[in-house]
């Protein structure tokens, strides 16, 4: 029983991490129509920046986490200004472009920080463990769950209860109409893009506590974000949350029951959802 | 023989009714004009007839056959063709290729891989006839994106005629055309034989009275009047709706 509970907790903590990552991805796609394949690379960059600040220079952990997010956000802004703006409404081209960015960011990361794996690193006061049902459970995982919950609450509130959220949702449904109402949609877009990418970078540092970081992680984590979006559906916080929790739990139990093939359970879930409800469990029709 | 029968057709988008309990029928060979102010649901009706949209409730019968759940391409096979209000053409292909695709759409050889398109000589003859009737044979090798708006609208109509349909849905065929170009289109429609039943959505009353022998009036998704052109002109409800709206025909509608 206690093993079961621990697995659930593993699933929820991983799910919280995936939520941080996938909600940004989903929002950017839902709002701007850009499928940012380099979202996983932004996660990686955040993790590396976090590592540099927290491990290499031994500075405050939360500074590292924030810096990771900010750098990722800034890179995404550069992408938006320098490239996506010029390809307005050309969605296929934008997507292919982000694909090129993945190669560039991956290789640059490998160049700057070396190709080897960096071991997981945690905040000093998060090191150590809690006692849950008589077993030791890493405090860092609990922290991820808490941070995840806070983000869910904040984003949900933003999406459903604020004017900004209403504007974003309106923009998703009918861009021309929203523009016609005199709202500076461009500013909103840029803000959403930055926020989503910031969360990717921040998630990178958080995730580094569990996964460490290495150049290949951008693709691996992208696949997981993808699975969340396919299963949960695009464009809503609720969809990202449902997808993230499902993937987290499937992954946790997959790793516990057949460790070699955990990833395949996720692929299987994706294929099943695609065959039954292609738009995702909570998604709008694609 | 009823070419088309619509029974209590309703379409809801969330809380909004685009169409509410619309019922009417069209005898074979008739020319029915569907009119109404912007937002009345005219294009939505066409989208449902065509199969691009699914009705929330209600049924449709094509020559007695229930097509309510039938896929769009199968309706085309039965003889239902449609033109679009906003030209839905293949912009990066040539005018000739556009017409060939339209002709080929209901031909049995459209899955052929073993012969080249050029081997099907009668398709080309037909393409020449079709394009000549809209004065586009000379521009057959031009890319559609390079021809004028009027020429694109002409091509749009030509594509919908290519399959020699039994039921032709024309959605604002003269939108954006000059008086002369519109007159040409009206002539083309008049020349269609009794084998083709025509439903036409139009704002331009010249087109409506020049082509239709029956009119249906929609308003906020509901059918409010039906009859011959004379009956509709005399109808007081219709006059009420259209009072002051004769110039409103140019506004882009959320149909």
């Amino acid at each position: 029983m206690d093993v079961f509970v621990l697995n659930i907790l593993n699933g929820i903590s991983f799910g919280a991490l995936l939520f941080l990552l996938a909600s940004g991805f989903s929002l950017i796609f839902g709002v701007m129509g850009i499928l940012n394949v380099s979202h996983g690379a932004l996660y990686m960059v955040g993790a590396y920046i976090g590592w540099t600040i927290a491990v290499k220079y031994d500075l405050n952990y939360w500074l590292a986490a924030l810096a990771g997010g900010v750098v990722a956000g800034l890179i995404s802004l550069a992408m938006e200004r320098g490239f996506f703006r010029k390809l307005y409404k050309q969605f296929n081209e934008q997507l292919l472009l982000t694909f090129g960015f993945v190669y560039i960011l991956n290789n640059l990361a490998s160049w700057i920080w070396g190709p080897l794996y960096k071991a997981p690193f945690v905040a000093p006061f998060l090191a150590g463990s809690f006692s849950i049902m008589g077993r030791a459970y890493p405090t860092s995982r609990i922290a991820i769950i808490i941070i995840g919950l806070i983000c869910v609450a904040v984003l949900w509130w933003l999406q459903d209860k604020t004017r900004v959220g209403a504007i974003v949702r309106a923009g998703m449904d009918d861009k021309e109409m929203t523009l016609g109402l005199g709202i500076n949609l461009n500013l909103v877009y840029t803000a959403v893009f930055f926020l989503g990418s910031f969360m990717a970078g921040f998630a990178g540092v958080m995730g580094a506590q569990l996964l460490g970081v290495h150049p290949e992680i951008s693709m691996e984590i992208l696949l997981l974000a993808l699975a969340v979006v396919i299963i949960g559906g695009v464009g809503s916080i609720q969809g990202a949350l449902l997808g993230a929790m499902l993937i987290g739990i499937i992954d946790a139990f997959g790793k516990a029951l057949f460790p070699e093939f955990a990833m395949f359970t996720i692929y299987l879930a994706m294929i099943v959802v695609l065959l039954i409800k292609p738009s995702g469990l909570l998604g709008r029709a694609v | 023989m009823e070419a088309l029968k619509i029974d209590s057709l309703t379409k809801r988008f969330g809380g909004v009714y685009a169409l509410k309990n619309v019922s009417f029928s069209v005898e074979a060979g008739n020319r029915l004009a569907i009119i109404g102010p912007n937002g009345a649901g005219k294009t939505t009706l066409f989208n449902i007839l065509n199969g691009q949209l699914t009705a929330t409730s209600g049924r449709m019968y094509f020559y007695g056959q229930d097509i309510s759940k039938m896929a769009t391409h199968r309706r085309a096979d039965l003889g239902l063709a449609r033109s679009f209000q906003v030209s839905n053409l293949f912009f990066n292909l040539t005018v000739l290729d556009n017409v060939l695709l339209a002709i080929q759409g209901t031909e049995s050889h459209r899955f052929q891989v073993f012969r080249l398109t050029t081997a099907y000589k009668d398709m080309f003859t037909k393409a020449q006839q079709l394009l000549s009737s809209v004065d586009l044979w000379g521009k057959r090798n031009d890319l559609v994106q390079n021809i004028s708006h009027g020429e694109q609208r002409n091509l749009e109509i030509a594509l919908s005629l290519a399959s020699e349909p039994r039921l032709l849905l024309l959605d604002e065929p003269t939108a954006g055309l000059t008086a002369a170009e519109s007159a040409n289109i009206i002539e083309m429609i008049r020349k269609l034989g009794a084998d083709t039943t025509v439903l036409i959505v139009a704002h331009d009353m010249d087109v409506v009275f020049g082509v239709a022998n029956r009119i249906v009036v929609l308003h906020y998704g509901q059918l409010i009047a039906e009859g011959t052109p004379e009956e509709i002109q005399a109808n007081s409800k219709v006059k009420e709706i259209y009072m002051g709206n004769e110039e409103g025909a140019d506004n882009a509608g959320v149909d």
Partner: protein
Amino acid sequence: MGTAKQKSSGFLWQGQLIRFAPHIIGGVIFILLVPFLPTYIQSLMTKILIFAIFAMSLDLLMGYAGVLSLGHAAYFGVAGYAVGILMVHYGINSFWISAPLAILLSTLVAAIFGIIVLQVRGIYCILVTFALGQLLYSIAMKWRSVTNGEYGLTGIIRPDLGLPHFTWHTTSFYYFVFIVFAICFFLLYRLVKSPLGLALQGIREGESRMSALGYNTWLYKYIAFVIAGMFAGVAGVLFAYHNGIMVPPNLDVATSGFVMLMIIAGGMGTLYGSLIGAAVLIIIQFYAGVLTPERWPLILGGAFVLTIMYARAGIGVYLYKLYKKALLAWKP
């Protein structure tokens, strides 16, 4: 009068020369010149032709039918691994047995994946194909007993053609690949000029119109998907024989992206663009491998970005326009 006649026939001769210039140049380089080139160049050209077949298969799907795929290497890799497994684990060397089986397998995988991929539209297809490609990559990595995991399936030798007294050299293998390429090119050319080919382009340009005209668009896209998988398998078979080894990255997004860049750089929706794109990228890859192997992904990514931003139509299309202009200039 007499001189005018002579002049015009001189004009005609030069006009014909220009008309067939690309074919003549291509023929000279790819057919006549080859035996006289150094071995490593012959090998490079072999690789170019193999990837040209691979690229053409993707172009059929993306350039003609308009279905985006970032997981096309799945079918390429499956066929390559099939050939390797038959040879290494079962000792089957005969080309006439392994190749058809391998291509059949890749076609089957495409038939299954196609159903899943075509549940979604447009941009979403890229994501689903990406995921499915990575699924196969994972299988190749984990199924060590069959694929030897990350160390790769080694020991794939040139196949047995069943011809007496025949041994393989670089040059003979090149011509073998060239013949396969020519056959594939011919078949695909016929395909895109057929009614089905025209229909695929119509679907790319306007799927809703095509439905309204009577085409079952899902079925057409599916057919394109399966045929594309089949031809990718052909390339995979040749690749296995050429490379001698199959590794999991041959199935993953890196390879898929590489060949996608080829058709974008060469010109989508034109078969010759695939050959040009393949040539350009394989040559760049070779020299990057010699000069800065560590930075090859960076160069590839940069090439991707530059091509999309500034050469969207592709080099092949640009060259084709030049060719058309030259033809026009010579019309008497």
